[in-house]
């Protein structure tokens, strides 16, 4: 029996207006992501990848259509509801890490937990577990400026998983890293998916990164135009 769909995007249309001009970013888009799936999303710049990611993560609302995460209709939730929902359900990994420079690695990872009704001891346990998971137990008190790019991204991943979210979305997580660090991060995402059964949605330009996904979708001019198995995708792109 196949896993149930955790993300359901139904007839989503997203457009922006600039003056009198209307720019259609996503058009009649339908998508389902299964629970525990590692999905890659590729496409050229301006194709709408990040917009789709934002809609799924509840950071933006579609102009038309519906976005469901589990049994929650995300596209109709208020900003306050979305904020609360995101804390528990979405882990976001950014290309440029976006750690707070004044906080240590420990404090950065702890930041989303401050919004949850946890005791200090519970918070500490979860932060240490998350940092252990990404192999940074020895860098708890380091500030982002004292860490390498790869290490900062690991902290970003620890911050994304520390609340044990339903879905992890990663927007070009290796875009700012050298090849070796990128491979380590991708291996870490693989590990998260395998060991914790996390659903991961990865936006990337990089075919090697997409190669780690179970399934890869292509976006072009706001429409999903192609679906391929990741291994085939990697083979095609790399020749």
């Amino acid at each position, binding site marked *: 029996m196949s896993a149930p769909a955790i993300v359901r995007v139904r007839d989503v249309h997203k457009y922006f207006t600039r003056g009198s001009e209307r720019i259609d970013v996503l058009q009649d888009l339908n998508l389902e992501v299964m629970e525990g799936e590692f999905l890659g999303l590729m496409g050229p710049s301006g194709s709408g990848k990040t917009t789709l990611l934002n809609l799924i993560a509840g950071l933006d609302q579609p102009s038309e259509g519906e976005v469901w995460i589990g049994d929650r209709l995300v596209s109709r939730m208020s900003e306050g509801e979305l904020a609360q929902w995101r804390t528990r359900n979405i882990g976001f990994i950014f290309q440029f890490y976006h750690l707070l420079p*004044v906080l240590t690695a420990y404090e950065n990872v702890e930041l*989303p937990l401050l919004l949850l009704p946890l005791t200090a001891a519970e918070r500490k346990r979860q932060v240490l577990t998350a940092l252990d998971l990404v192999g940074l137990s020895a860098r708890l008190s380091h500030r982002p400026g004292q860490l390498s790019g790869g290490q900062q991204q690991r902290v970003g991943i620890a911050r994304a998983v520390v609340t044990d979210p339903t879905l992890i979305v990663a927007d070009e997580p290796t875009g700012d890293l050298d090849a070796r660090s990128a491979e380590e991060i991708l291996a870490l995402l693989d590990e998260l998916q395998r060991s914790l059964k996390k659903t991961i949605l990865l936006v990337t330009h990089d075919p090697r990164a997409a190669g780690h996904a179970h399934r890869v979708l292509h976006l072009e001019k706001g429409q999903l135009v192609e679906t391929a198995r990741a291994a085939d995708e990697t083979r095609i792109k790399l020749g």
Partner: protein
Amino acid sequence: MPSLLEDLQNNPLAQATLVLSALPLLALLAWAIWQPKLFLLALKNLRRNSLRTALTCLATLVLVLMATLILTVVVTLDRFTTEKARDFKLVVTERWQLPSQMPLTHAHYLDPSSPSFMLDRSEIGPNDFMTWSFYGGTLDPGKMTRENIVFFFVMNPKHIIPMMDDMQDLDPALIAKLEKNRQGCLLGRERLEAINKRVGERIKVTSMNYKGIDLELEIVGELPRGRYNTTGIMNESYFNQELERYARTKGKHPLDSKRLNLVWLRVRDRATFEKVAQQIETASVFADRPVKCETASSGIATWLEPFQSLLWGMKWVLVPAILASMALVVANAIAISVRERRAEMAVMKVLGYRPRQILCLVLGESLLVGGGSGFLAAFLAWFTINAVGGLPFPMLWFQYFMIPTQALFWGLAMGFVTAFLGSALPAWTARSVKVSEVFAKVA
């Protein structure tokens, strides 16, 4: 100077600034207790650009200091020109002449301890009466300079503590010395320093207004610091004795029948004031040299009339301008900080922080800067200026202004209010950051 408790009971500015400083302070405390990590984050954000924070604090500190000094002058003068609801003082002066110069006999009719007392003893008690004569002179008649001039309130020492403003805490031992030694006098700290004399030394004063009445005085004590820094008090019995000696040898002194400058009476309320004033102003005993009565506050207000425009400008133009400058300084610093941290605000939203929490974070940072530097400025002004004897700002007989304790609330309130006003718009901008727009660079 009234105590903090008296100010909080009677002074609307003290009450308003207490509320304006207590509310944000309690809000910050509640925040620190409820969400200590976010409070800590606000503190750490302030350290992010230490130079900018330090410069903002410094600008706020200087501006609060200026506003505190101005408010001190304005509030002190207001205190003297605002009538009290109870226990206010009535001043009897010569009706048709300025400066007032009345015969000493006028005092006999108004002195409750005199058999000629013409008023109701149930309304004016023995401690509700005081007379002043003004005596000025120099220690060096050959070379009179500002430094060697001394000015005395000539009065009965018994009346100093019960009747003179800001003398309630004067050591009674000094009064006893003054009563025991008829040639004794008390001098303010600054005057003592100017004439290079110490307590225990004697001075010979050549009079400027009572020509030929030169006095030899012994300095028996120092007046409290503040408004009496440059003046002195001497025993009236010695002064009167010397005028009588002069009369015996050279005939009556030209000012003999003009030696009484002011008579002070304390009445319990406005109705008593009206009644007593009417009694005095219509009394036949004063017919030859008519007198007028006014409250001390209106008397002082009359004296301050030439300064009204200046005081109005200080109160309603200068202080608001300073507060507006403070708000702009804070607005500028917080706006730059928010603009630099838009991505961080967006990340916090992604992590689940609500717009109001981000608003609170920015407002909190601003209130910490404003309140902290405002309080520090007011505390520095209160502590250091009072320690050196007050703010020198000569205006009539007001030479020095002591910073009132309520100024600590002014500093906090000014800091908090201007920080709030200055950061409201940047905080709203931070709260309204659109995550999708901030991260729209790679699509």
